[in-house]
């Protein structure tokens, strides 16, 4: 008997007694207030992320210093050109030298301060971890109230890879001292920027 059949047979033999119906999951009232943008920002900050408003004539005003100081900028958004073309990357490891990656989130979650990406937004999945810093564009209209609402979205059944980022990479494995940038990005900044906004200068 194959391992598969042996395991399934033992499971059938050992089926626990009693009825164990699958419960219906009610839609809970969101924990957050009506101002989803404010709630999102507050919770993102608590998870170590940063939040920025787009500047009047420069979407990236809040991270301009970081962008100007960067040698390699990989942009997956039309709002910024960058100098590393992600569509031309041969192997994921080749984005190891990226200083700042710029991507757009599918949506945000106010309850947790999370943003969702799939392989379509990231182009090279690894760039969201190998880059030193991550800048995320999020349309304020794309903020969902809670985690429960997020899991009713179709992306999870469609994308080969979908990931919720909540702030930057973090660890406190040494004496509980919180450190950002454990293996992944050292910072994550969300810019509240509507889709289809004007292209930034530079």
């Amino acid at each position: 008997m194959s391992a598969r059949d042996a395991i399934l047979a033992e499971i059938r033999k050992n089926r626990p007694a009693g009825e164990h119906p699958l419960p219906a999951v009610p839609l809970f009232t969101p924990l957050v207030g009506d101002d989803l943008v404010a709630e999102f920002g507050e919770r993102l900050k608590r998870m170590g992320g940063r939040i920025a408003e787009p500047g009047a004539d420069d979407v990236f005003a809040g991270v301009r210093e970081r962008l100007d100081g960067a040698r390699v900028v990989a942009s997956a958004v039309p709002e910024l050109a960058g100098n590393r073309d992600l569509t031309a990357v041969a192997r994921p490891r080749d984005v190891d030298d990226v200083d700042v990656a710029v991507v757009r989130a599918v949506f945000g979650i106010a309850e947790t301060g999370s943003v969702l990406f799939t392989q379509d937004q990231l182009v090279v999945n690894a760039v969201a971890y190998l880059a030193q810093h991550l800048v995320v564009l999020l349309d304020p209209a794309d903020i969902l109230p809670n985690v429960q609402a997020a899991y009713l979205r179709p992306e999870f059944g469609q994308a080969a890879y979908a990931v919720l980022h909540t702030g930057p990479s973090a660890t406190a494995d040494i004496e509980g001292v919180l450190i950002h940038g454990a293996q992944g990005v050292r910072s994550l900044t969300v810019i509240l920027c509507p889709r289809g906004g004007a292209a930034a200068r530079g």
Partner: protein
Amino acid sequence: MSEELHPREAEGIVNPVVRAPDDESERGQDGRRLDHAEGTSKPIKAPAQREPQPRGAKIRGDRPIDQGEAAERFLAAPLHAAAHDERLWDLRRKRDTAAHGIPEWEELRELASQIKQHTLSNLDTYLEQFEAAARANGVHVHWARDGADHNRIVLGILRDHGARTLVKSKSMLTEECGFRHFMEGEGVEIIETDLGERIQQLDNEEPSHVVVPAAHKTRFDVAEVFARTLGTDPDNDDAHYLAESQRETTRPYILNADAGLTGCNFAVAETGTVVTCTNEGNADLSGNVPKLQIHSIGIEKLIPRVEHLGVFLRILARSALGSPITQYTSHFRGPRAGTEMHYVLVDNGRAARLGMEEFWTSLKCIRCGACMNTCPVYRRSGGLSYGATYAGPIGLIIDPTFNKRKYSTLPFSSTMNGSCTNVCPVKINIHEQIFAWRKVLAEEHQIPMLKQGMMKAAGAVLSRPAAYRAAIGAADSALKVLPRFAVYNPLNTWGKKREMPDAPRQSFHAWYRENRMKGGAK
């Protein structure tokens, strides 16, 4: 805001001696000190005084583990004992704050429990559904009866691709399988990429906690390990320096690895998705950088549908860390273009456990560690004292299913206060199962006569809940600091015959006055 986001700091400090005079943890955009991930709400810094790290239980083949002996050695290292106790109690407090912030908390626990019980009692169907969905997504699916099977299958996959190096993220399942040790013998280089797990790998130790693998080590221990293995400055014990050293030395392995492996927090039958919940981003690196990706999945990790993640994700990180979510929640469903993706579904005793009437619900466990953080015995003895892959209350009830003789004494390492059951997000009746194991092991003569005698006394009291509560003290006050009363009362076999080196000799009331009434604790 309806949810309280910041626990009151003054509360709950148990060991002021290990509190940091200054604050090294990250601050947020608005200058507030942050305590997400597993960060303590007030960082711990051990005073600059060297104290060798107490090592774990002595393993002698199948001979019963003497947890008490190892616990004694841990308690004899006051710095380690205090720092460990403090850090995990902090996680427990953060968990309370997070749980109290959600009005539907109890409802979520009940739902999570019911969803798991439903899935486990139809596990064959859900596994078949998961397998079919994964295959349709282009994932190769393998089945392993036990740990040896798992290791052989992974080795086969690696050999097929000529892979000689593998980066992995934290996975308790691979610890169960002895994966790293096996691969060493096969000439495959395995690199742990989680900081805590890497520390443990470099020090040749098992993880001591399911969420914080190196919780039992001080910064001095880590500085010593890194100086010895990574060539860092032995006199620099700054946590930032040490973490950065690990990042810099691990990155080349990640970039050059032939394969990557992750564990699995949830496997969604409907979509064939593997979900991992991490803080460091290392599971995403393991899954997204190498050309070959492998996910090891315990068969009990199944849940029926994506919508159920909306229940489990809301309780997992809150129970584990007091955070609303982990930094990364990753959903792996299909291979990247030009790469291969493999799932290894592992039984390793789970199908058999399903048939154990009193113990099958232990399979609901989502490995949040809350029961460990709240357990006074665990906090004061360190995870390695259990000499098993799983420590703390959850370990007491699943370790004996792996080896009845070797782990026969573990169900006695409990004060039976029931706190583990109260915090468990999937409502496993942990303390009742601990007691049930004592009975089973006594009946099967796996435990010494002395403990069998004590079983009778404990049984008499446990059957009268009021008397039991009065005897043990079910309130938090009995948990926060482990009082002599709880350890040495005649019903508790854990403290029996063991005088703890530094335990003060005072009455419970004197202890209470000194510890509970000061520092503003209510």
